[in-house]
């Protein structure tokens, strides 16, 4: 399927990229598959941006670059710091990455231990760790769950705990990979309200066009490893032929 390129209507909103600046990023997997073909993207403090595109577009691959789990050719800057091997741990404390499947995110027996992992790894003193865990659980409204076993929680609850595990690191940028997948309508609604209320810059990949419409003023569309549109959500959702060309649908 050919990549339809931007009409001039789709132009990225003004932004000096003070939180995130990705510049001409290329990446191929070891098997030779080119997953990113020159991606550039900027996010400002307070932005809430949706990242959409068909399966295999490279969304998850891009997200894995934002805190250095993968490193391709090109620049990634977080809050003005270039991501290098040396400042990796520091960058990771600024970028909170939440994976699609909360089961991948939660590896400790209890909720408390999981949320405390990040702060503990950062070497923070115990009192600080505790207060951060409390604050993070408070933010996702799961304070009463701190001593529960994560194994026995419902998907929606796990999802919120997964978000808390990165909030406890007090990141400046929250990166969420398909947060609403597998949730029932009620849990999905709770999640939408939670994301709306969190006062953090966020980049969210999703297939849920209704979520995009409700929550994000700005949308980035990827296909075949390129950003093919970066514009106001209303504009992108209004252009049906463009959506179809990239395997998307109107909500």
């Amino acid at each position, binding site marked *: 399927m050919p990549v339809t390129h931007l009409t001039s209507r789709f132009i990225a909103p003004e932004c000096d990229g003070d939180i995130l600046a990705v510049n001409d990023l290329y990446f191929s997997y070891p098997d030779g598959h080119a997953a990113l073909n020159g991606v550039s993207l900027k996010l400002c403090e307070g932005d809430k941006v949706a990242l959409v595109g068909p399966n295999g577009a490279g969304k998850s691959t891009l997200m894995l670059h934002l805190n250095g789990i993968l490193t391709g050719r090109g620049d990634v800057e977080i809050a003005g710091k270039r991501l290098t091997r040396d400042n990796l741990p520091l960058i990771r404390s600024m970028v909170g990455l939440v994976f699609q499947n909360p089961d991948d995110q939660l590896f400790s*027996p*209890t909720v408390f231990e999981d949320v405390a992992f990040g702060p503990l790894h950062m070497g923070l003193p115990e009192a600080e760790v505790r207060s951060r865990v409390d604050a993070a659980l408070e933010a996702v409204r799961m304070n009463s769950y701190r001593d529960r*076993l994560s*194994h*026995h929680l419902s998907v929606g609850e796990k999802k919120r705990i997964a978000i808390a595990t990165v909030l406890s690191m007090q990141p400046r940028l929250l990166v969420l990979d398909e947060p609403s997948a597998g949730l029932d309508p009620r849990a999905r609604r709770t999640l939408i309200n939670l994301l709306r209320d969190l006062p953090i810059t966020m980049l969210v990949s999703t297939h849920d066009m209704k979520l995009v419409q409700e929550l994000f003023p700005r949308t980035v569309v990827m296909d075949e490893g390129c950003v093919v549109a970066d514009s106001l959500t209303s504009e992108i959702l209004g252009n049906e032929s463009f959506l179809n060309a990239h395997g998307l649908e109107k909500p």
Partner: protein
Amino acid sequence: MLYSPAPLHIPDGFLSLIVSIICWVITALTLGAAISRTNKSLGERQIPLMGVMAAFIFAAQMINFPVAGGTSGHLLGGALAAIVLGPWAGMLVMTAVIAVQALLFQDGGLLVMGANILNMGLVTAAIGYGLYRSVSSGTKTARLGVAGVAAWLSVMAGALLTSLQLWLSGTSQLGIVIPAMLGVHALIGVGEALITVFALAFIMQTRPDLLGEGSESAKAGRGWIYAGGLISLLVVLLSPFASADPDGLERVAINMGFIDTGRSAPYEIIPDYTLPFLGETALSTILAGVAGIVVVGILIVLVGRGMKAKS
């Protein structure tokens, strides 16, 4: 690195034919017992369970944790598999893992697979389960503590057996291979023990039913306590002796004919085996083989007794 070979997987070419065959015989006998026990005692649900558990052990071997200076601890899994699945199922699961590692990744050879299964699958499971079983009705702390010791010992036993097989095959010098292998694996064993203990603690916390009364793990007989204890005792006695006085061990082995067994060049074996006038070497070869088989046979009988006594 997707997959890093562990130092216990012996490749083809490093063991002599006769040592490989003796190990295969011991392994095949034990597995035969394991298969008939498993077929008898377990329901049809066990097939998918053991298959997925084998994939679990394989995948869990990739979980590591940084220790210091670029080294990391990781899991071999024999003891853990036996503790959570019971000894016979644990052995079968480990056998599948080792077979796939050899077939698919050439991590460990085919002719020497009998030895590899013996070292990493059977002995580890017997020690792991046997020691754990002796405290399986004890407190949580006791169970975890013993599981840790058992996991550490199981790795040491694997290393000791590997060294002995290499030495009997004339591939390594006893005075070097024993301290080297045991030294390295004393550390690797600590990683094994820690991961095993914490993984068990996790399971006890989230699904205590899988390890409690009436679980698969609690079903096997008390014979395992003797088998596991006996092998552990051998390891505990032999390791320091072999490390401190390899020459002593060599003298014992020469007196008992073991050395000639392993090292007799393979092309001598075939004619000697087939000719009616058995030479001294060939006789000792066979005797050694028989001795090995008898030892294993006794162990199997002991275990079988224990199982019967229970039921």
